[in-house]
């Protein structure tokens, strides 16, 4: 039991180190649900966001830890709306959780060109959001923020992460 709690605490600390580079003061952002930064930091590579929480339980209890992973897909020419560049961000958890909140953002040549509203999905093991703009040739990259509210009894009760995806050149 003690080992599991330490694991959860350690995991929570690892999650917190993934935060940063965002400005809650931007339009639509709050201290807990940040908006996308206006520009991509110089030298920024792709990052990966994870959030997890644990509860007291036996080492053999797989449900004692819920892990959620965020992924920023590569922006692409939309195959459903012509003339549009779209980026999809996803969250996948190892078990259903009460809430997953996501925000997606799209950058062109290092500049923010669009960000989505926050989207909260409830009682689910997955979440998804997207951001899109009219296509013009350039280098595009996505960004995501996500926050997870874990079930009662899990520690920490919430966790969040954010990060950038891979940059890709897009012609229209």
């Amino acid at each position: 039991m003690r080992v599991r709690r330490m694991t959860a605490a350690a995991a929570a600390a690892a999650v917190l180190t993934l935060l940063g580079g965002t400005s809650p003061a931007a339009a639509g952002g709050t201290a807990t649900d940040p908006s996308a930064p206006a520009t991509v930091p110089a030298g920024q590579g792709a990052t990966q966001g994870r959030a997890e929480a644990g509860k007291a339980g036996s080492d053999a209890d797989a449900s004692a830890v819920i892990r959620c992973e965020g992924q920023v897909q590569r922006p692409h020419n939309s195959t459903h709306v012509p003339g549009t560049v779209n980026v999809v961000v996803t969250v996948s958890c190892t078990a259903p959780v009460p809430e997953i909140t996501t925000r997606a953002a799209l950058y062109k040549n290092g500049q923010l060109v669009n960000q989505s509203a926050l989207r909260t999905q409830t009682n689910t093991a997955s979440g998804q959001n997207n951001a899109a703009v009219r296509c013009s040739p350039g280098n595009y990259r996505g960004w995501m923020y996500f926050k997870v509210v874990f079930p009662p009894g899990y520690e920490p009760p919430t966790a969040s992460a954010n990060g950038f995806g891979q940059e890709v050149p897009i012609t229209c």
Partner: protein
Amino acid sequence: MRPTPARLLRLRVTRLDAAADPAAGAGALLRHFTSVMPLWTEPEMTALAGGPAVVDPTEADAAADECLLLRLLAREEPGIVRGPLDRARQHWIGTAPHELAPARRPVPRREAFRAPGSDPGPPSTKPFHLGLYTSTARRDGPGMWRTYLDQGSSLHPRPWHTWELRADPAAEVLEIDGAAAWAAFVRRYPLAHDGSVFPDWRRAAGDFAGVHMTLRAIVATQGFGVRVGGGVAAVPYWDVESSLWLRWVFGEPGLVGVAGPDGE
């Protein structure tokens, strides 16, 4: 070393089968399919394969046949998985206008239908500028396009108007049930452009009222080229089971329902 196309197909099947629960109903299985396949986009394929990926149609179809998810779906919805198309259960959904798609209308209208050749647009494996797309409604629920919309996309704001379109039973529909059928289709109606071979939808419309892209074909072809004659077919990205109608062969549309801004 980059993975081979065959290995990419196995990876795709593995991801699809991650939720292949025999106890799950068709709705849950289709939701999982819809959560997986649209993520196989052109940039993702390029990154995975390190460049254009060309598959052997027979190998691709064999890989699709290994997919447990498809086998489970075929028990309840065989037409969605491999055809034939159920002409009586075709759904078209009109989503609200968006600044990037301002001309959308909530009602399918024959007057707005553009047959291939009436307005030449760029060659495409899934053209936007002509015809009309429907998805087959499940026996106990909506079609896959509605399932895709339910995942959430800012590009398709509500309200969503779902219409039933009953196709003329005599209308000829070409079934694309796999990579071999896709290759045969492109080989039969080739349009060479910019180093790839696209389907010539105008010529296809002379023989068929519609083309039905099944789930088995999507699994086997999405993101991959196939050799056709002296070239490689352009890569298709259809995402979900759909039919492209090249002629208006419907009776009066029937409104199934409206999903308003706050949901149904």
